[in-house]
């Protein structure tokens, strides 16, 4: 069997991320919250590997602590959205009829709001904190999952082997779990990995629009947003979190692809 490049690279990147997050939970080179006004905006050096920010805080330490915060937020949000979305989407796609219409009407109503702006409004209502962020973004992303899952279910349930399953007398629910769900996993895996990225990005976009995880706790998103005024004078401030987000997404997406390859029932014959 060939070694899959996506599994290897993706795995390595995610291992790096988890390593950084776990280490950051117990140890960082400096206190990520300690302000040192005499060491503001220092370029990367042997002491501060990634430099210091506008309050003289060590960027590397903040990246390490921020890794944990960002991962937890993204993971919980994605799980929330996928979990709720799968259930609703499968139900709508399989049951059809009036239930489907009602579900899709509500879904379309939610989907019809621009996600990031819905999240912005929800955050103003529930407050700018981690829970608010997760709720806001989760709510914003559930409808997309529902729609993609439903579309997949609709197209799969027409396929011969599902028809066959039904014809030989298997129950609807059994057919759905046995044949439809596994097929829905591939597009949902792709969507979930992309969504993990969207959440990381949305978190920075919300910080950019003025709301996000409250300071001084670092997340990559609020670090990136805070670095914006210093893009020209202190580029390291935006490069570090920006790169971390990019690499994490690369990792999770590659892993998602390899996961999908494994889950695909017909992959084994390929």
């Amino acid at each position, binding site marked *: 069997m060939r070694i899959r490049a996506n599994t290897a690279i993706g795995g390595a990147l995610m291992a790096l991320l988890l390593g950084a997050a776990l280490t950051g939970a117990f140890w960082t080179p400096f206190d990520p919250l300690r302000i040192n*006004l005499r060491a503001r905006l220092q370029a990367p050096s042997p002491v501060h590997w990634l430099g210091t920010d*506008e309050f003289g805080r060590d960027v590397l330490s903040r990246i390490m602590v921020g890794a944990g915060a960002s991962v937890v937020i993204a993971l919980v949000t994605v799980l929330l959205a996928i979990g709720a979305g799968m259930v609703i989407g499968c139900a709508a796609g399989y049951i059809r009829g009036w239930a489907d219409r009602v579900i899709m009407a509500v879904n379309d109503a939610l989907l019809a709001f621009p996600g990031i702006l819905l999240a912005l409004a929800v955050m103003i209502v529930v407050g700018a904190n981690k829970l608010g962020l997760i709720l806001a973004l989760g709510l914003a992303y559930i409808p997309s999952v529902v729609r993609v899952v439903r579309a997949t279910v609709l197209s799969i349930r027409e396929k011969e082997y599902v028809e066959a399953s039904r014809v030989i007398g298997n129950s609807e629910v059994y057919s759905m779990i046995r044949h439809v769900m596994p097929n829905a996993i591939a597009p949902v895996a792709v969507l979930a990995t992309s969504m993990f990225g969207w959440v990381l990005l949305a978190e920075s976009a919300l910080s950019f629009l003025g709301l*996000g995880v409250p*300071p*001084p706790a670092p997340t990559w998103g609020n670090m990136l947003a805070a670095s*914006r005024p210093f893009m020209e004078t202190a580029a390291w401030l935006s490069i570090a979190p920006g790169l971390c987000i990019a690499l994490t997404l690369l990792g999770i997406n590659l892993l998602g692809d390899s996961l999908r390859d494994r889950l695909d029932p017909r992959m084994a014959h390929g």
Partner: protein
Amino acid sequence: MRRRRPSPTWALGLAALALLAMLGKAGAETLLRTRLNADIRSTDPGTNRDANTDGVIAHVVEGLVAFRDDTSVGPMLAESWAVSNEGKTYTFRLRQDVKFHNGATMTADDVVWSLKRWLDPATQWRCLSEFGATGIARIEKVEAPDPQTVTITLDQPTALFLSTLARPDCGQTAVIHRDSVGVDGKWIAPIGTGPFKLAEWKRGQYVDIVRFDGYVSRSEPRTGYTGAKDVKVDRVRFNVIPDSSAAKAGLLSGSLDVIMSLSIPDLEELKSRPEVQLSITPALGLTGILFQTKDPLLKDVRIRRAIALSIDTVQIVDAVMMGTARPNNSALPLGSPFYSEAQSHGYVQNIAEAKKLLLEAGYRGQPIKMITNKRYSFVFDSSVLVQAMAQTVGINIELEVMDWAAQLDRYNRGDYQSMAFVYSARLDPSLSFEMLTGPKAAQPRKIWDNPEAQEMLRQSMMIDDTAKRQALFDEMHKRFIADVPMIVLFNGAELTALRKGIKGYAGWLYPQPRFWGVTVQ
């Protein structure tokens, strides 16, 4: 809701454009391009307005009096004035041959008409309440005994009459021509006496003002919103650009000439640019930390005082404002004529004393929520630093970021433990204290509920004697420091960047631009 058809303004704009096209000199006109961070709200002075609106409109209209550079009040459309009847009657002598933008000559009749329009509740003038039952004084009579004289009679003497008339947020109580409104009484466009005329308002994009060739300038040098107003450009365009990075980029690429209200990081970056010059002016705003003195925890003055003693104001101001502002613990802004030696005594960092006070108060690390916002970077940065410094004496502050409107709502309801806040400029020391002190039961937004201070404030508004007012303000300052309803940190600075070719620009205590006397090379 009132409806207003925008077409007359557009028609005006089109007419101006057509005129320009006819002259065939559109390419030769000198244009000054500046930036607004948000669109203006209307062209109707002192009604539907905000700071941006005031800033643009101040180029187009003028009032009887106006603020000078040092926030004292000087004559503008008035030549002079006299006070009689125990401080209750003001007689204004008007300047001769002042022209409106439509060519008409201003007379006392126009002044009376304008004032009566402001005082009509239907106009929705922002400052109407100042001249009502709860305000500084009621206006009983406005008369024009002859074409060059206007008398205004009040029901009681007040130290604040002229400065209220001059307030930019009151539209400087502008004198406008009656054709500014339609026959139905609805606003059309300002026909004022200012050195610029409103040319075109392209909503969400830009506002253009053009030179008024019939302008008759005062003779004394430019000062504040009065003095000589010699316009040296043909057109000023206020571009609506919400994003500050984009505005900065616009300045550097040459598509903007002037940008105001720079953030500190922007300033640091622009310092090194050869094509840019900077104008740094002290401002009158007030940034600080408010405490809710009714809060179960913070009602203990010892805890409030401990927070004040835990922080190093000098260090905060240096870090946040990068040397563009000086620390100030007083409610009066630096630069105010009433800022005396007494006002300079504030808080000095004292960790041991702070810890002792906390011990006495029985504070054991209970979290104190502090609301802050990202709309103003200096407010946000200040709150982060205060939190870190308070931490060193064991005070546990938790920051809560809100959008500005949500924070304002909490502020107005008094619903907070503490918040980092910024007050806008007040142009009179009585008003500086008035924004802080008052009975919380009736006015929840007031932060300093001290009956003695309120009495002193009331006196300061009535008395016109400078020395007596000074004594009152000094005493109020002492009590303000002792009560710690708020820690004032600093008055901001207005940071403006201009391209090198712009000459003659000067900032002043009020953070608004003046584009008369400015040349483009």
